[in-house]
C-alpha cells in the first residue's frame, strides 16, 4: 500500500503542471460540494435554532378561517377545552389583525396582536424571543395600553413613539408602556401588542381567536397532547381546516425543504465532479499511452496484471485525493468568507456555516472514489497491453 502511494507520488510529481490541470476539475467539484453543503447546513441550523427558541414543548394551533366570518373558526370555547386536556400546562390565545393605527395625525395600517395580558410575557418571551428594550410587558388588568415592536417605536411613523406617548388603534387611545428590542424580523418589529379582549371588542369579534399557543407539562409527550388537541377540535368543528403544529414538526418540515435545496446543490456539485473525473480519465489514458514502454518494463520485471492495475488506480486515486484536499480547503475558505458576510449583514450568529470534519472526510473520500473510478478504464487499458508489444513501442 505504502509503496504504491510512494510510486504514484513520484509519477505525479514528474509532470506537475499536468497534475495540477488534471485535478482542477475535481478541485472545482469538491469546492462546490463543500461550500454548498456547509452553507446548506448552516441554513438548516439557523432555522432549527429559530424554532427551538419557540420551544419543543409548545404546540401552535391556528385556523385558516376566522370565527364569525362563517362561524367556524377557533374560539374561546376551544381555548377552555384545550385547557382541560391532560398534560396541558397553560394555554394562551392570540388574536391578530391588521388595524388602523394613528400617531400624531399620521395614519397607517398596523399589525396588532391581542394577548391575554397575564400570559403575554410567558408566551412571547420564550416563543418569539421577545426582549424588552424599555418599559414593561402587558400586565393583568391592562386595557388601553400597548407594547411596541422596535420599528414602530423607531421609524414606522414619521416621528418616534416613546414610552408614555399614546397611539390610536381603530380610533381609540392606547398608552405605550413598553418597547421591544429589535428581532430582525419585520413581521415582529412592525407589530404592537395589546389586551386580546380590548382588541376583539374594538374589532367586534368577541370570541374569536386566530392562534392558540399551548405549553405541554414536563414529562408529557408533546405528540400525544397534540393528538388530543386535534381530536377535541375535530369534535367541535366538523370539516374546518385548522393546523396543529409542534415546533418539532415545523423544524422537520423546513429542514426537509432545505434538504431539497441541498440535494439540488449537491447535484450541481456532482456534475462538476463528473467533469473532473473525465479530466482524470483523460490524463490517465494519456499516461498509459505515453508510458506504454514502461508498462512493458514493469511486466517484464514481473508485475502481475493486478499490480499494474493497482499502480494506475492509485495514481488516479491520488489525483482525486489532492483535488479533494484542495477543494475542501477552498470550500473552507469560502464558507469562512460567507460567515464573515453573514455576520456583517445579518448579524452575529444568524447564519453560521461550518466545514465539519465529517464533511471534509466524506468530500475527500468521494474525490478519491471519483479518481479511482475515472482510472478504471485507463488502468484496464494498461493491463491489457501485450508486454512484447509494449516493450517494442
Amino acid at each position: 500500500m505504502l509503496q504504491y502511494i510512494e510510486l504514484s507520488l513520484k509519477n505525479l510529481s514528474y509532470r506537475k503542471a499536468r497534475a495540477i490541470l488534471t485535478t482542477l476539475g475535481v478541485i472545482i467539484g469538491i469546492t462546490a460540494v463543500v461550500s454548498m453543503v456547509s452553507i446548506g447546513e448552516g441554513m438548516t441550523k439557523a432555522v432549527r435554532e429559530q424554532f427551538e427558541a419557540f420551544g419543543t414543548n409548545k404546540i401552535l394551533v391556528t385556523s385558516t378561517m376566522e370565527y364569525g366570518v362563517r362561524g367556524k373558526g377557533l374560539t374561546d370555547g376551544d381555548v377552555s377545552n384545550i385547557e382541560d386536556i391532560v398534560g396541558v400546562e397553560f394555554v394562551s390565545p392570540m388574536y391578530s389583525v391588521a388595524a388602523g393605527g394613528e400617531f400624531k395625525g399620521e395614519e397607517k395600517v398596523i399589525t396588532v396582536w391581542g394577548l391575554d395580558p397575564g400570559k403575554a410575557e410567558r408566551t412571547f418571551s420564550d416563543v418569539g424571543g421577545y426582549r424588552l428594550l424599555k418599559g414593561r410587558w402587558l400586565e393583568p388588568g391592562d386595557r388601553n395600553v400597548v407594547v411596541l415592536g422596535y420599528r414602530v417605536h423607531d421609524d414606522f411613523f414619521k416621528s418616534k413613539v416613546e414610552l408614555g406617548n399614546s397611539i390610536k388603534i381603530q380610533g381609540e387611545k392606547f398608552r405605550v408602556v413598553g418597547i421591544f428590542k429589535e428581532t430582525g424580523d419585520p413581521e415582529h418589529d412592525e407589530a404592537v401588542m395589546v389586551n386580546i379582549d380590548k382588541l376583539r371588542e374594538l374589532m367586534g369579534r368577541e370570541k374569536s381567536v386566530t392562534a392558540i399557543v399551548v405549553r405541554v407539562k414536563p414529562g408529557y409527550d408533546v405528540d400525544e397532547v397534540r393528538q388530543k388537541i386535534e381530536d377535541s377540535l375535530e369534535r367541535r368543528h366538523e370539516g374546518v381546516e385548522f393546523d396543529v403544529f409542534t415546533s418539532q414538526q415545523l423544524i422537520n418540515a423546513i429542514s426537509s425543504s432545505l434538504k431539497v435545496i441541498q440535494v439540488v446543490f449537491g447535484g450541481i456539485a456532482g456534475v462538476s465532479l463528473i467533469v473532473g473525473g473525465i479530466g482524470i480519465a483523460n490524463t490517465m489514458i494519456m499516461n498509459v499511452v505515453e508510458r506504454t514502454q514502461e508498462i512493458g518494463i514493469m511486466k517484464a520485471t514481473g508485475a502481475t496484471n493486478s499490480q499494474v492495475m493497482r499502480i494506475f488506480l492509485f495514481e488516479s486515486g491520488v489525483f482525486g485525493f489532492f483535488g479533494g484536499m484542495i477543494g475542501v480547503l477552498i470550500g473552507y475558505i469560502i464558507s469562512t468568507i460567507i460567515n464573515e458576510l453573514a455576520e456583517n449583514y445579518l448579524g452575529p450568529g444568524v447564519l453560521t456555516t461550518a466545514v465539519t470534519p465529517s464533511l471534509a472526510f466524506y468530500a475527500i473520500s468521494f474525490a478519491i472514489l471519483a479518481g479511482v473510478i475515472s482510472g478504471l478504464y485507463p488502468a484496464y487499458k494498461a493491463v491489457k497491453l501485450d508486454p512484447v508489444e509494449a516493450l517494442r513501442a
Partner: protein
Amino acid sequence: MKGLDIVRLEGVEKTYLMDRVKVPALRGINLSIEKGDYVSIMGPSGSGKSTLMNLIGALDRPTKGRVFIEGRDISKLSDNSLARIRREKIGFVFQQFNLIPRLTAIENVELPMWFAGVPKVQRVKRAAELLKLVGLGDRMKHRPTELSGGERQRVCIARALGNDPEIILADEPTGNLDTKSGEGIMRILEELNERGKTIVLVTHEREFGKRANTIIKIRDGRIVG
C-alpha cells in the same frame, strides 16, 4: 540429461498476424539449455532471435509447441503465472536499456523486488549491493538520463538480478554501446555465468558470440547450427 535442462523448447512455432497476413517468426524450434550454460544466439536481422528470447522469458506464448522452464510447461499458463515466472526465474537485459526515466538507478533496480513484495529496507540494501556489483556504487541516485549508455546497461543488469533469477536473457545488450562499454557488459555477464547463472545472449557481434559455451545459429525462424 533432460532433467538438468533449465530451458527446453519442443516444436515451438510463433506466427504473428499482421493485417490478416500470417508472418511466421519461428518455424519449429527444438532447443535445450542446461542450467549454468552460457548460450549465444546469432542470426541475421528478422530471423526470430528476439521472438525466441521472449518465449524463453515467459513474456509471450508460442503459437504451437511447448516451452519448459525448469521442467514446467509454461506455454499455456495464465498472465499472472507467467508474471510470477518472469519475476522469480528470469532477468531481462534489453538493447534499448529500458529503464524507467522518472526513477533513479537504485529505484529501477528495486523494481522487480518491489513487484515480488520484498520489504523496503531489504530491497534498498540488495539494490545497492547489486549496483556495487556492476560497478555503479557511486551512481545510485542518478536518473537514467544522467548516466552513459554503458552505465545504463549495467543498471539493467543489476535490475535483472533483483530477485536472483536462474536465467539472464540479454537481447543485444551491447548493440547500442561502443566496443569498450560493450566489453564491460560482456565481462559482467561472463562473471555472472561463472557464479552459476544461466546466460542467454543474443548478439550480432561475432567476437562476443564466440565467447559462449554453446552457439545457436538461427535463420528464418529455424535453428541452423
